[in-house]
């Protein structure tokens, strides 16, 4: 139980933090307009040269190990929906860390998603 709670924390909080670092890195290198393999490879290479990307990779690696730990004992149909709590963390991070303009409508959507997550957790049994 405690082991799964620790894994859950890493998946939700550390994983979401890592995704926000990816977003910051990709915003720094600019938009992709050409979808040829060479252009995509160049874009990925530029992203990997950003320190934010390596912070992201480290955080997301810890989150991934934790996800594996959860999946060893818990149903996939519970694990994935229940980790959607990260939407709340993501919206907060989008507003305060990435300086995105999270509109009231987007907040409403995130709140509805969180209600859905609650139902998934209650419906575990």
């Amino acid at each position, binding site marked *: 139980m405690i082991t799964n709670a620790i894994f859950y924390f890493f998946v939700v909080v550390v994983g979401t933090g890592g995704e926000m670092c990816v977003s910051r890195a990709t915003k720094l290198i600019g938009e992709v307009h050409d979808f040829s393999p060479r252009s995509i490879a160049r874009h990925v290479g530029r992203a990997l040269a950003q320190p934010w990307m390596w912070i992201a990779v480290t955080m997301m690696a810890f989150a991934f190990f934790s996800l594996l730990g959860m999946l060893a004992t818990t149903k996939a149909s519970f*694990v994935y929906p229940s980790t959607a709590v990260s939407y709340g963390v993501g919206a907060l991070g989008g507003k305060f860390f990435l300086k995105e303009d999270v509109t009231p409508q987007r907040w409403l959507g995130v709140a509805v998603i969180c209600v859905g997550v609650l139902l998934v957790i209650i419906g575990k049994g």
Partner: protein
Amino acid sequence: MTSQTGRRLETFIVILIMVAVTALGDIFLRKGMARIGAMPSWAPADVFHFFFRAFTSPLVWLGIASQLAFFVAYLLVLSWADYSFVQPVSNSISYPFIVLSAEFILHESVSLLRWAGVAVICLGVFVVGRTQVKTTGEPV
């Protein structure tokens, strides 16, 4: 495609590809990890043995390959779209896919209440999906 509609369509197409790839990867990961079982304790030797078994499982590697493909698509879409738009939409559309896959491929029992939760999540996605793709910098 530079108009708001074109960029929105492009964004949703990439997100759909991401959803299909990640759902497949999730099923591989669950199958692989279920064979390994619970980590016995937090003792360093047990932790090492647990993750050693995980990373020598072909099913786990198939799952990782799927996640890497998802990550490349994610990098692309985040270069033009807001994180607070992409994250809820991409992750939430994938829930019905994952839960359906878990029920029919992994034969997990899914309660009606959990399905109701997934439906509510999809409603939230619909609400988020109707907001602007990008809210910072130059308009697209």
